[in-house]
């Protein structure tokens, strides 16, 4: 065994079961001893203090921070598939905080700060690469929004600046910044702390950290009903049996309406697929994230050299996660408008994830009229970026039953009260 030791010993600290380090790798290599599983399977207990529905980055982060920050370890995370099989494994792994509203900027910036130290906190390399993030403006109105965002960002202490086409060309030499382009580039919002991260590693790191604190992760466990008595949550019905619990957290994306419907909480969510695609690997040539709202596309290059493309949501609501030919044709045309030299690069695959769009493009977080039923839903296209801060603030909300300041504005009641937090202007691409 490396450092770390027995499982029970890890409950007092943040240290997972077997510590990952160069030294541990070396000694295990010499002894040829297998690594222990990063998280374990358990039998379903008849009751838990907290049941989290959805084993993505939000659910697992909530479980991890409940245990690590508040000492609440009698927690179950349920997923109907495997962990990270939903939005957490389908997004384009971009992290940024250059939002439009002060509330949004503060919230997503906290997430970037948590991501910055996540590898150390979880003892798991999440490969966060703060390579910079460029949002291109192809017309006056989007340039005006970029300036607006840059000023709001700077007031909140977030590094953002509008830069000229010459500066863009220096950062991305392969981009067509000429005036003769189909959609000439007038400028860009440059956000140096933005970048990409390995999204699977974030899920696995939180799962391993939560498991080390005693959280039970139940994969292949679908929630089929939630029991409510006198406006209080009492139990969760699953495909593997019933669980008595006073607290249920809806951390699902795509399926959040179905879970909320189980307790009769109506949310203003509409589910749209969002498609993405990846090319064959090529030599490294792109070390920033490039986004074009007008062309509905974002591009980044992975450490393996593949180009990852994302787009706006599909034009109609659906729970289908199939790709479409129209999407890939349109996407290819738009990518080539930005970088004509990619015309010979072949696509490897495409996929879709589900986005729960809200009327104001901000999430729905907090308690509901049903006591013990909490929402962490409505993430639209921003869910992955917000994983750590959502977990941290949802854990604080559940542990203290007081809504943390940083998420107070994202409550469900804002829709009935007319207090929307309009974040559409910070969407990567038009929707």
């Amino acid at each position: 065994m490396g450092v770390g030791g027995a499982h029970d010993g890890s409950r007092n600290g943040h240290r997972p079961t077997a510590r990952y380090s160069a030294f541990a790798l070396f000694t295990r290599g010499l002894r040829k001893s297998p690594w222990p599983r990063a998280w374990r399977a358990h039998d379903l207990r008849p009751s838990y203090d907290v049941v989290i529905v959805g084993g993505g980055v939000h659910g697992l982060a909530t479980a991890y921070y409940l245990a690590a920050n508040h000492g609440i370890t009698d927690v179950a995370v349920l997923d109907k598939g495997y962990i990270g099989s939903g939005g957490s494994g389908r997004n384009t792994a971009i992290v940024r905080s250059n939002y439009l509203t002060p509330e949004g900027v503060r919230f997503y910036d906290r997430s970037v700060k948590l991501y910055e130290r996540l590898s150390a906190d979880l003892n798991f390399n999440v490969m966060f690469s703060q390579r910079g993030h460029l949002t291109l403006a192809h017309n006056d109105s989007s340039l005006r929004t970029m300036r607006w965002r840059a000023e709001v960002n700077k007031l909140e202490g977030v590094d953002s600046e509008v830069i000229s086409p010459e500066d863009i060309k220096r950062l991305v030499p392969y981009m067509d910044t000429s005036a003769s382009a189909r959609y000439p580039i007038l400028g860009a919002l440059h956000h140096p702390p933005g970048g990409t991260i390995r999204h699977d590693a974030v899920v696995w790191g939180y799962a391993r950290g939560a498991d080390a604190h005693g959280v039970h992760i139940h994969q292949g466990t679908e929630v089929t009903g939630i029991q409510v008595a006198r406006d209080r949550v009492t139990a969760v019905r699953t495909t593997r049996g019933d669980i008595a619990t006073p607290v249920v957290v809806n951390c699902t994306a795509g399926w959040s309406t179905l879970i909320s419907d189980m307790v009769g909480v109506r949310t203003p969510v509409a589910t749209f697929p969002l498609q993405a695609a990846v090319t064959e690997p090529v030599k490294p040539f792109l070390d920033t994230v490039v986004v074009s709202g007008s062309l509905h596309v974002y591009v980044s290059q992975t450490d393996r050299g593949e180009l990852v493309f994302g787009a706006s949501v599909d034009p109609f609501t659906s729970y289908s996660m199939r790709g479409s030919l129209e999407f890939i044709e349109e996407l290819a045309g738009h990518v080539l408008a930005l970088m004509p030299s990619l015309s010979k690069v072949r696509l490897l695959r495409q996929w879709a994830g589900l986005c729960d769009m809200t009327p104001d493009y901000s999430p729905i977080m907090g308690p509901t009229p049903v006591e013990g039923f909490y929402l962490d839903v409505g993430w639209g296209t921003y869910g992955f970026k917000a994983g750590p801060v959502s977990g941290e603030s949802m854990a604080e909300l559940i542990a203290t039953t007081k809504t943390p300041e940083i998420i107070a504005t994202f409550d469900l009641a804002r829709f009935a009260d007319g207090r929307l937090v309009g974040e559409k202007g910070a969407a990567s691409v038009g929707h």
Partner: protein
Amino acid sequence: MILLPCPWCGPRNVSEFRYVGEPRRRPDVATTTPQQWRAYLYNHTNAAGWVREQWFHRTGCRQYFGAERHTITDEVRRTWRPEQAPAGAEPLLGVTDRAATTEAGPDAGGDVL
């Protein structure tokens, strides 16, 4: 990709159409409260399964019509003209006066499916 059978033009690629959404009954503007109005604006059924919804044939006949679609498989099992809505379906939005004009119009009566 799904094929959508336009009740006027027959099956066409879905990219020819614009999705309008689930038709909802608009509250009376004179008597509604702000809360009721916002609930009408924002809340969706967002069902996973068979739904009745409204589409617009953007690059074809430019007509509104109703459709029954499965939101998990994207299968469409029936579509209808506004005046032929099945029992229990919400009336389509923005086409309240259309029934009369369509009956008298040049394409009345003929089903080109």
